[in-house]
């Protein structure tokens, strides 16, 4: 693996850049804290089902979404909390959904794996590996059909690269030149299986070659770098209506889901990655560039208050009413 360090170059961009980085750091920190709180609530039995945390991968979602316009679309897997927050979902709506409450983004019907926020063009988290990739191509197809200039970002893990949905989605997007970016979040493990045991090549981005589309591949370390690299792919989609496959090398700090003790990797490997935590790096960069300890503390306190407020909101919110079930199954009269 390529060497990585935490010492970034000083920010050379115009002075607005530091505030921009602070905004990105705020989002990453919010995601981290929301995830930690949801893990706690899960342990207390307040959240059920599967819970897949985004801890360690925050810079992928935050950096990628930073390269988008608000009207661009995002679509992802069950590991969707970070993406939802990055795209603008409130911590309240997210936490209430995890608690299964009526005030959750999907009224408590979807849960952790199925976060939707149509107002913010977050078109969902999906549970079947690869199933949402052709769906994302369909969303991009609609943008091209309507010439609305919008771009679709489709996220998935490296585990999805073996399934048909990935190949059919890419193949069609390439054939019809759709305005989409396929973002593979390569966190090295699909559940308990390392990439080396699921793919014949190590470089996921090579899959773009056979479809004749552009590709990119980089480490997640620096959220600004993620934004810059994603912006290139997004502009290719927006300006030229051409798809790109981007492989972002990342790492999840927790198990696959809450029930996975992650025995398949060594503590040393995990510690190694934690030393390169993009969240810590972004924070260090802010400090080095004179953001100021006071402002940083204020920002973090704000996030903390937002998270505590979200938990309280979720706790106190009502349960969804059974009458929702029929209403959300069909638009119009129930077709029994």
């Amino acid at each position, binding site marked *: 693996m390529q060497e990585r360090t935490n010492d970034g170059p000083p920010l050379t961009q115009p002075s607005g850049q530091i505030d921009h980085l602070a905004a990105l750091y705020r989002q990453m920190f919010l995601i981290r804290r929301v995830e930690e709180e949801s893990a706690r609530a899960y342990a207390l039995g307040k959240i*059920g*089902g*599967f819970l897949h945390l985004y801890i360690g991968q925050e810079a992928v979602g935050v950096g990628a979404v930073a390269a988008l316009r608000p009207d661009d679309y995002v679509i992802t897997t069950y590991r969707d909390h970070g993406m939802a927050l990055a795209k603008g979902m409130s911590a309240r709506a997210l936490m209430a959904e995890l608690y*299964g*409450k009526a005030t959750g983004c*999907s009224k*408590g*019907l*979807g*849960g*952790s*794996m*199925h976060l939707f926020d149509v107002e913010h063009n977050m078109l969902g988290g*999906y*549970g*079947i*590996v*690869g*199933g949402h990739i052709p769906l994302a191509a369909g969303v991009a197809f609609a943008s091209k059909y309507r010439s609305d200039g919008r771009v679709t970002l489709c996220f998935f893990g490296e*585990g*999805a690269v*073996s*399934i*048909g*949905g990935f190949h059919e989605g890419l193949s069609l997007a390439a054939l019809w030149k759709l305005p989409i970016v396929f973002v593979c979040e390569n966190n090295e493990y*699909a*559940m*308990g*299986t390392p990439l080396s*045991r*699921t*793919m014949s090549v190590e470089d996921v981005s090579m899959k773009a070659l056979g479809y004749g589309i552009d590709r990119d591949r980089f480490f997640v370390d620096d959220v600004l770098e993620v934004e810059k690299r994603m912006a290139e792919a997004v502009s290719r989609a927006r300006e030229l209506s051409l798809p790109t496959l981007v492989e972002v090398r990342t790492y999840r700090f927790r198990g696959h889901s809450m029930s996975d003790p992650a025995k*398949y990797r060594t503590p040393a490997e995990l510690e190694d990655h934690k030393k390169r935590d993009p969240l810590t790096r972004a924070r260090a960069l802010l400090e080095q560039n004179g953001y100021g300890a006071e402002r940083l503390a204020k920002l973090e306190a704000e996030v903390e208050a937002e998270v505590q407020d979200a938990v309280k909101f979720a706790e106190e919110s009502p*349960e*969804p009413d*059974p009458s*929702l*079930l*029929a209403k*959300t*199954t069909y638009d119009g009269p129930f077709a*029994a």
Partner: protein
Amino acid sequence: MATRVLRFREALREAMVEEMERDSRVFLMGEEVGHYQGAYKVSEGMLERFGDKRVIDTPIAESGFAGIGVGAAMVGLRPIIEFMTWNFSAVAFDQILNNAAKVRQMSGGQLTCPIVFRGPNASARQVGSQHSHAMEHFYATVPGVKVVAPAFPKDAKGLMKAAIRDDNPVLYMESETLYSVKGDVPDDLDVIPLGEAQIVRPGVDVTLVSYSRMTHVCVEAAAALEKEGISCEVLDLRSLRPLDEGALVASVKKTHRCVVVHEGWPYGGVGAEVADRVQRLAFDWLDAPILRVSSLDVPMPYNRTLEDLCMPQASRVIATVKKTVSRGRA
């Protein structure tokens, strides 16, 4: 006869291990079956025992490895293909429907397809609409495959051995919520033939027909109803295709009433099939319409209370039985 207490997952594992020891053509393939020891620990220790030639971890490629299984079976191997859950078999549906179920007939009987597809089916706990499907209803409609759904460790073992030895595709439905259930398993248990239901609790007032985890719900309901003076006979189908018509008819001729209980939606499905057969074959013995207790007719919600509402519960079985037995007696 000597017996041991085994958990459901251990019974399944024993059956696979014994069959792999007696027949080198049998192998296990699926996601996380080897190094990870099985997503639900059913195949724990099997990689160490048989090596990676016969316990094979796959990438996430259900259509691919289901097809590999069917192809290998056509030319003489006897694959056991694990779906991490049956929900993911939807991605491989084409391989099961168009290949596994068809090669024998398309080839005029030249080929057979001795393969087992297995994994946990139906709801787990709050895993939402995409992960809670009762897939047996889709598959049981397909001629060319057999469908099995046991409720107890003994049956899990005996039916798994039969499934592996069967020369047809057998779709074997387990349940995440049954894996830790314990039960007596006879030491000398061999195969339990496919297509034979069993009475797990005799009774005289109504027949409760079920399978897999819902058999346990029926037993619970029957115990509660007994206290109210209603005697339920619980018939555990074990196999859904072939379906044991004889056992169904014999029981209903005795009780004159029938309630079918299963997960999955009410539109069509195994319950509708049972109702059709019972009314055709035992019409003159029936004292009340056959009723069904199924999941509600909506995608499974995440919220716990709503999920409970959607799932067949003992309380709903009890209420339905009361409706059935009160008819004509009021």
